[in-house]
């Protein structure tokens, strides 16, 4: 434990602790619900916008629901989507980066041009169009299209579709240098197929950049999820997410600014922690980057 803290530095260790705490709190939502003796979905129109009290530690929202419980349940959704979509994005990015870096030549040029194109395009307007697609027109039954699983799945797919280029670039860079190494040459000389060499010999050695890219991707994905949900195109109420809890908050900003603070603080804390952790992981795993100590989670460097 102390060895990890030493390698990551105090800031990143604190970030990791915050993330663990947030995840545990979200996981414990049903327990908190029972301990408080409340129902997270219970609407109480007489107790709307109540200030913090013993019964409601953070007060209630515009429908009289307990804010703390909504935040915890929202955290489950936001964090799950964040991790699942980031892993999906990293998987796509790894496959593309590996193909580009290992095969090189024209494949590399085409794939990387494509990645650059995705990074350069205005993603949010595109995501909004994609998120507005009516799934019943794609042959889904109305019930299935409105189900929570399908909506969550769609959000994961959408965010993964735009989140992969960062990983692709990092993995490509690693694969480019790895494919010239002796052990890869040896594997090729033994007559293994390119796929086997790439997956069994190159991929495991690119684990460090993949880990860093996945971590940084979680931050980006949580941001994308929150803004899409905020705009009404991601997680739909009554299912809470940190993003869609802020939608109602904007209309009530004059009456109850308190509602706008908490969900945002949690998104912010999550993303800052993830970015700090990703940066520290990069430095810890790649001694060369310590000197440069830069690059951004934004813009996909």
């Amino acid at each position, binding site marked *: 434990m102390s060895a990890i803290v030493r390698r990551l530095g105090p800031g990143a260790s604190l970030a990791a602790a915050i993330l663990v705490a947030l995840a545990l709190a979200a996981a414990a939502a049903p327990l908190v619900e029972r301990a408080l003796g409340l129902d997270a979905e219970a609407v109480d129109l007489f107790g709307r916008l109540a200030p913090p009290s013993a019964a409601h530690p953070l007060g209630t929202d515009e429908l009289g629901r307990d804010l703390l419980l909504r935040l915890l349940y929202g955290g489950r959704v936001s964090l799950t989507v964040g991790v699942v979509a980031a892993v999906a994005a990293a998987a796509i990015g790894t496959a593309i980066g590996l193909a580009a870096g290992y095969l090189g030549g024209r494949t590399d040029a085409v794939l990387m041009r494509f990645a650059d194109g995705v990074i350069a395009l205005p993603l949010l*307007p595109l995501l909004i169009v994609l998120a507005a697609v009516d799934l019943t027109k794609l042959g889904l039954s109305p019930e299935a299209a409105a189900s929570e699983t399908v909506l969550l799945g769609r959000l994961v797919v959408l965010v993964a579709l735009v989140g992969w280029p960062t990983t692709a670039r990092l993995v490509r860079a690693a694969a480019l240098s790895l494919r010239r190494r002796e052990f890869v040459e040896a594997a090729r000389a033994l007559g293994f197929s390119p796929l086997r060499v790439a997956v069994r010999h190159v991929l495991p050695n690119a684990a460090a950049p993949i880990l860093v890219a996945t971590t940084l991707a979680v931050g980006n994905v949580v941001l994308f999820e*929150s*803004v899409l949900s905020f705009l009404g195109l991601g997680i739909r109420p009554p299912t809470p997410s940190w993003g869609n809890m802020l939608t109602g908050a904007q209309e009530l*900003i004059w009456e109850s600014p308190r509602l706008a603070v908490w969900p945002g603080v949690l998104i912010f804390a999550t993303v800052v922690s993830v970015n700090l952790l990703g940066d520290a992981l990069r430095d810890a795993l790649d001694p060369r980057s310590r000197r440069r100590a830069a*690059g*951004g989670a934004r813009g996909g460097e």
Partner: protein
Amino acid sequence: MLRYLAGRIVQALVVLLLLSAATYVLLGLMPGDPIDLMVGADPRITSQDIARLKALQGLDRPLWERYLHWLGAALHGDLGYSRLYTQPVLDIVADRMPRTLVLIGLALAVALAVALPAATVAARNPGGIVDRGVNLLCFAGISVPPFWLALILIIVFAVVLGWLPAGGTVGAEGGGLLDRAAHLVLPVATLAAASVAAYTRHLRAALIEALGEDYVRTARAKGLSERVVTMRHALRNALLPVVTLLGLDLGSLVSGALVTETMFAQPGMGKTIYDAVMGNDYNLALVGLLVAAAATLLGNLAADLAYARLDPRIVYRAEPGA
């Protein structure tokens, strides 16, 4: 150089063409179609009327035929009619585009004005207290959800302090330039935040690297002051990667403009695209999206050309197959 430029422009046009086709198909998948919306508005409509209306609007023909028809008309300058605003799409875009350009331009200027000194101060003593502070602020900048930053700014400056308006472009009295400027302060600050952080991080890293180069040692050795060494020698070289970053960042700025304009009720391109998608205004959504993409691609190209101009070592040649 000219061949390179021509190649890049052709590339951008191909991207736009593909994007228009993809978006056209996607918009066809959005809920409802124009006729459904008319049916909803008029209870006396008959099924013959519906068939007639569909034929009139060309909705009985296959999707690809409709797309080619749209494309042909668009290339002749006919971008269609907006259902939401009952105005030609071109007029709406011409009205909204300048507002967004002003917003993005101001945000870019603010971002550079803050990032340059911040990065210079931070790079002077890497690892020092100032550097750490700047670094922490940068992390905050890239991590804050833009719409939440907007909410917090509204709460602090409009609700609590009452110094600035919470949204819109002009006050109730339809004030002058100062009033318009006041309405732009919060949107520009929101939009600039993420860019400030990104530029500062990159510039700081580039500066630290430049300050370790031989020519900086030479400049110091001949007795130049630290200020001259930093400003005249290191900074000029460190600015180069930032030019590329500016080009790449345009896409994020356009995305950011969508959020910012929606939050602050600014009638620009971003809010127009959002409203068009939410209101099933296909023509407007399609054109808005393409205009945003075209602007971004142009910005990228401009950044690459500026880079070549600033760095005499870079020579662009048309590469085969690219």
